[in-house]
């Protein structure tokens, strides 16, 4: 009898967990069949959409804010996969993602030129900042980017780079190019990590680094590093959205991807983007045409 009771409670626990587990699987939007939605807009598409974007984008919290609007309108369940820009683009090339939202214009244009996606559209821009120790050993505060980087290089002050082929890293490299410097020596530390880790590393080493404003703001409370260079146009960071070529494989949700692109450049989404605030500041400027 004792054993029977134990067996029953074990089975009940297992069943409970299985039920909970099934509840975990995204149910929502998929379940609403297209025929039922007479009252709802005819845009109900349903299905899952894999959106590949960058870690800094996801970490900013923007997507949590704006996506519900899309999901409600179309019934699409969006799965946000946040990786580095290079990895996101590769997922597009491999057909592993349905739509991309990244910030590396040249690479995006190459993506389209090579036929991996039909087109790219401007969505919004945010900006980068150069942060460093309060003591500012290379004396770059308030300077324009090119001058600041030159001084850092001459002072051989520590500069921490993401080094991970991300959009941010690509941007950073372009800044050095503009300053006509090839940073190779010991003072240039390449860490191959995400933005948060990179900032932490710069803090530990009392060095400089380039970060998107959002990530910096999210960590500001715990940091001693401060913003030293900002506002220079060269620091603006343009975001683009691209559908992945549906011909790559059968699993690509092209209807969902197309709807997403149309939505994110629509008035409503752009408005949402412009009103999103984090850490007391608006982070993104909508600029879809």
């Amino acid at each position, binding site marked *: 009898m004792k054993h029977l009771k134990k067996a029953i409670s074990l089975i009940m626990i297992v069943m409970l967990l299985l039920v909970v587990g099934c509840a*975990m699987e*995204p149910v929502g939007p998929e379940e609403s069949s297209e025929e039922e939605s007479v009252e709802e807009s005819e845009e109900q598409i349903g299905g899952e959409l894999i959106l590949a974007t960058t870690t800094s984008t996801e*970490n900013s919290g923007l997507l949590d804010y704006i996506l519900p609007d899309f999901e409600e309108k179309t019934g699409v369940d969006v*799965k946000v996969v946040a990786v580095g820009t290079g990895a996101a683009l590769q997922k597009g090339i491999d*057909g592993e993602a349905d739509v991309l939202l990244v910030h590396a214009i040249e690479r995006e244009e190459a993506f389209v030129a090579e036929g991996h996606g039909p087109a790219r559209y401007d969505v919004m821009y945010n900006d980068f900042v150069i942060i460093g120790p309060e003591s500012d050993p290379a004396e770059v505060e308030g300077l324009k980017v090119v001058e600041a980087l030159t001084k850092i290089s001459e002072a051989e002050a520590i500069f921490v780079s993401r080094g991970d082929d991300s959009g941010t890293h690509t941007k950073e490299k372009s800044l050095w190019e503009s300053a006509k410097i090839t940073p190779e020596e010991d003072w240039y530390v390449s860490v191959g990590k995400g933005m*948060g880790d990179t900032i*932490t590393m710069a803090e530990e080493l009392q060095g400089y680094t380039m970060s998107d404003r959002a990530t910096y703001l999210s960590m500001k409370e*715990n940091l001693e590093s401060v913003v030293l260079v900002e506002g220079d146009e060269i620091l603006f960071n343009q975001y683009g959205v691209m559908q992945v070529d549906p011909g790559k*494989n059968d699993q690509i949700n092209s209807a969902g991807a197309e709807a997403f692109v149309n939505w994110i450049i629509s008035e409503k989404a752009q408005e949402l983007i412009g009103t999103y605030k984090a850490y007391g500041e608006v982070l993104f400027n909508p600029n879809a045409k």
Partner: protein
Amino acid sequence: MDYIIEGVKGAFKLILSLDKEIYSIVLLSIYVSFASTVISSLIGVPLGLVTGIKEFRGKRLLSKIYYTFMGLPPVVVGLVTVLIISRSGPLGTVGLIYTPTAMIIAQSLLVTPIITGIIFTNSKDTGLEIINICKTLGANKKHTFFKLIKELKPLILVATVTGFGRAISEVGAVMIVGGNIKGHTRVMTTFIAMSNSMGNYDTSIAMGIILLIISFSANSFLYNRTMGDSNGYKIKKY
């Protein structure tokens, strides 16, 4: 130093606030690891028993194979799984990537050798003894089988709880096949890794504490069940 204290304080506040996001992540972790442990046990226990008790050529080679697979790095398992289930992979059409199911598959691949190996190593001698004794006492196949399971219950428990512990604490496999997608495939370990890289110490500590509590509970349960009964069982894990 301050941020650690602040982190711990914030962590407790978060845990006690019953934050929905945190707890849905915890529940998903338990679901995934529990399911994979069940699957792994259903395969590993019989497999370990049969190969452990029977004598056959190549048994020592099999033993080495088990040991090797017991030490499989989770990231490697994740990588292999992803190569198979990604859209361009052989099983791409099933649409498993970035789902909890894929995570369960990957963890099952990881944990099955562990359970098999533990059962195999420990049933080699004991299993045979039990079978022999049952024979001398006139038990038929059915009786012997049930006696075997009953006598080896502590061993089976150790193997499965060890497997569960491995599953719930690994991050490599679930990160790669699940993608740490908010609301879909985010589990405790991937959440901690992500929180940490974002510098959110209070949430990572909170989740870390919960993970430790779960781990500790599982092992306490195991200890009480196997040692508490004055068994004096010595079970080799490697």
